[in-house]
């Protein structure tokens, strides 16, 4: 049976834990707001990019002669999975959810006899996948120490991917990240990066203005430029969504932890009080029975 002192220490330690989780929750909430703002601010660029790209790609009628970034290499033997996760843990199922989705896909592809290569962005994803798929990891990128994600970070990753593609190291690239739906809901998502999935042209949009369009220097060059740029834009989008999701996941995980610590403190306090009363009663009985014996 624990002594009163042990119980007091126990309660004090849970209270200290609750303070830490509470602080982490508030930090995550502040970071989440910033991450959301960053994601919001990046949206206009991505939207214009999508619109222009679908406009240009929709006009390319000859589907066989286009850039390999758009139509692929004609094979799908070697797959590159780019798995984006957080640098740090303590954010609920965030990292393991992404890793699980990537692992399932990797196993399925391996089962079909395809070659799978994995590029991890963020330390946690590499840690998570190392056991089962360690030999498939070809590249590990860590973004630790970066306070504010910039487009240059995304460009660095995209350039690596493009260099690998040009060297013929893979046929299909898929991006794994967590889509930010809301603070309590983040959805692990797989997005095909190469060959590019062109968003469908919105048929309800007014066609008249866009119908006659000139391109400088030429349609092919503009499309080529857009396609390479699109890779970094998508990577950037993934990074930002991931950053917001991570903070959201951490916030709700820490909220849960704080609540659990509170419950635990209540239970322990009740137990402590019972024990204290029992001790007092016991002492009283001892005194009374001692007095009666005289």
């Amino acid at each position: 049976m624990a002594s009163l002192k042990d119980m007091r220490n126990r309660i004090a330690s849970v209270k200290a834990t609750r303070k830490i989780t509470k602080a982490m929750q508030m930090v995550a909430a502040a970071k989440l707001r910033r991450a959301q703002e960053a994601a919001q601010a990046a949206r206009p660029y991505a939207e214009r990019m999508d619109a222009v790209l679908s406009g240009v790609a929709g006009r390319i009628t000859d589907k066989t002669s286009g850039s390999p970034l758009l139509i692929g290499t004609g094979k799908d033997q070697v797959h590159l999975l780019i798995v984006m996760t957080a640098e740090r843990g303590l954010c609920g199922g965030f990292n393991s959810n992404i890793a699980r989705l990537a692992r399932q896909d990797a196993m399925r592809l391996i089962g079909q006899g395809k070659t799978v290569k994995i590029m991890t962005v963020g330390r946690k994803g590499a840690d998570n996948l190392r056991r089962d798929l360690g030999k498939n990891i070809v590249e590990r990128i860590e973004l630790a120490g970066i306070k504010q994600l910039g487009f240059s970070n995304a460009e660095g990753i995209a350039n690596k991917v493009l260099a690998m593609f040009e060297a013929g190291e893979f046929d299909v690239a898929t991006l794994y990240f967590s889509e930010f739906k809301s603070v309590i809901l983040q959805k692990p998502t797989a997005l095909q990066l190469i060959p590019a999935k062109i968003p469908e042209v919105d048929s309800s949009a007014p066609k008249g203005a866009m119908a006659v369009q000139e391109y400088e220097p030429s349609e092919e060059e503009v499309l080529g430029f857009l396609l390479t740029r699109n890779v970094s834009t998508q990577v950037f989008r993934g990074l930002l969504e991931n950053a917001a999701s991570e903070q959201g996941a951490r916030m709700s995980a820490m909220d849960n932890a704080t609540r659990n610590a509170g419950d635990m403190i209540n239970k322990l306090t009740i137990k402590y009080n019972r024990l204290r009363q029992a001790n007092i009663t016991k002492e009283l009985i001892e005194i009374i029975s001692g007095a009666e014996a005289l």
Partner: protein
Amino acid sequence: MAATFKFELVSPERVLLSVDAEQAIVPGADGEFTMLPGHAPVIATLRPGVLDVSAQGSKKRLFVKSGFAEVDPARLTVLADKAFDLDDMTPSMLAAELKTAEAELVGAKDDEARMIADTLVSELKRLSSRAA
């Protein structure tokens, strides 16, 4: 009042500028072109250079580092990888930009990257010599 069009300068990180402009001179890859309201629709890639925007009597000079411009009669959207307002730039900031650009030129792998970096370096040199 002169006719205007909507000018937007967007970087991947955020919208940098959104104004009603009367005129804009855009450094296109095939040469500079002036955009006035009612311009024919064009999609053009950009080379590093200065973008001149005249809006509501004031002139803005913006430096853009590659990207593309989407033009239609009532709107000009410039999607730039990197852009900054020249009025906000100090000579030391220009020098720092020039230094990174020169490093890029040395590290450029193919002709195209070298050409872009080269244009960037010469543009920045021109600007910093003028600012000095």
